[in-house]
């Protein structure tokens, strides 16, 4: 008789344990154990029919269905614009400072990292369409429209620079498509042309189509290096302000953002961050 009481107390603890799990797979396994113990209790109180049926359906079938249905949800979907040395692909293999950062973060919350390179325009639509969890690739607050996103803490400093022909400043400026001009002072809405990528913007500037453009330092160095035509001789560069490179998460994901911020702070405190950055940005 005391066996039955012991088993039912075990059942109670199991039911509470199922609800406290945060990983779904653990919760499903515990539910299987819960059904198994209840099947044993049925046997003890003289109901073998119910014990066999609960064992066959409750333990085996239900657990199979749940485990089959559960996706190996453990994937962290990252979308990014390819910006060496932050995050880029060379000879088919991912490299970059942000890659190390994200890989460490994914291991921390035991998920599997999956990076996908997309064009500048469909960054926001992908996050809006909830296909991805995180935006990377030299992202800084103001780089994309803000209402769907929430930004993480910065991990690397950079400057926002405005490059323009002397004395004809502010006539026809160019900025990247999704940037909202309100976050950049000194740039007025009218007369702005928006470009799909930095390379087209620099080409347009060189063939005089626009009189100047705004870009951040990280992207400028790589874009110039890649299209290896120097800027026009007499262009002036005046820095608009400091920016913090970081990551962006879709608006609703507070807990993911919190974990990311804790991870970045802890990395900065332990000094690994500076050592990592110095490796990539000498």
């Amino acid at each position: 008789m005391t066996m039955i009481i012991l088993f039912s107390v075990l059942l109670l603890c199991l039911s509470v344990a199922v609800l406290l799990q945060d990983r779904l797979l653990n919760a499903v396994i515990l539910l299987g154990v819960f059904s198994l113990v209840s099947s044993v209790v049925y046997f003890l109180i003289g109901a073998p029919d119910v014990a066999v049926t609960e064992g066959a359906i409750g333990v085996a079938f239900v657990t199979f269905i749940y485990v089959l249905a559960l996706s190996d949800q453990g994937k962290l979907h990252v979308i990014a614009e390819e910006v060496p040395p932050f995050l880029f692909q060379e000879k088919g293999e991912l490299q970059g400072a942000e890659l190390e950062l994200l890989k460490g973060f994914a291991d921390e919350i035991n998920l599997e990292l999956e990076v996908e390179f997309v064009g500048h325009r469909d960054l926001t639509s992908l996050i809006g369409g909830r296909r991805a969890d995180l935006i990377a690739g030299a992202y800084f607050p103001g780089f994309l429209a803000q209402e769907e996103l929430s930004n993480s803490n910065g991990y690397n400093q950079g400057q926002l620079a405005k490059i323009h022909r002397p004395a004809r400043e502010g006539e026809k400026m160019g900025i990247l498509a999704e940037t909202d001009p309100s976050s950049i002072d000194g740039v007025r809405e009218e007369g702005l042309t928006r470009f799909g990528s930095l390379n087209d913007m620099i080409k347009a500037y060189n063939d005089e189509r626009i009189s100047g453009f705004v870009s951040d330092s990280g992207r400028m160095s790589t874009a110039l290096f890649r299209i290896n035509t120097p800027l026009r001789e007499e262009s002036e560069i005046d820095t608009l302000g400091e920016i913090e490179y970081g990551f962006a998460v879709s608006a609703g994901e507070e807990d993911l953002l919190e974990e990311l911020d804790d991870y970045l702070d802890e990395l900065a405190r332990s000094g690994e961050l500076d050592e990592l950055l110095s490796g990539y940005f000498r």
Partner: protein
Amino acid sequence: MSANLIVSAISIVIVCVGVIGLILKRNLLLKLLSLNIVNTATILFFVLIVYKPGDRAPIGPVTGVQFADPLPQALVLTSIVINFGVLALSLLFTMVLVKRYHTLDLRKIEGFVKREFEEEKS
């Protein structure tokens, strides 16, 4: 306070734990798990309610032995299958919802559903 009253009381506590989990958990799949707990615990309660200590399985024509009451056991076989049916269909619907909205958080799903119904009808 014989043992079977204590065990029935514990099965009711498990029902309460399952219902609290069902209401407060935001993840739709965890809601289904707690619904499964509630159903299993109700079945346990239904079989236990008529259990007298020392009951033997109602099998074998030997008379004069204290047999357990066969009726709740037969009824419970049916409700185990019913709970399985409910679970399989709700898992199917959850898969369709996740395929459409990519999230298991019920509050977000409810927001999307309301907005989508208005968009389609207006």
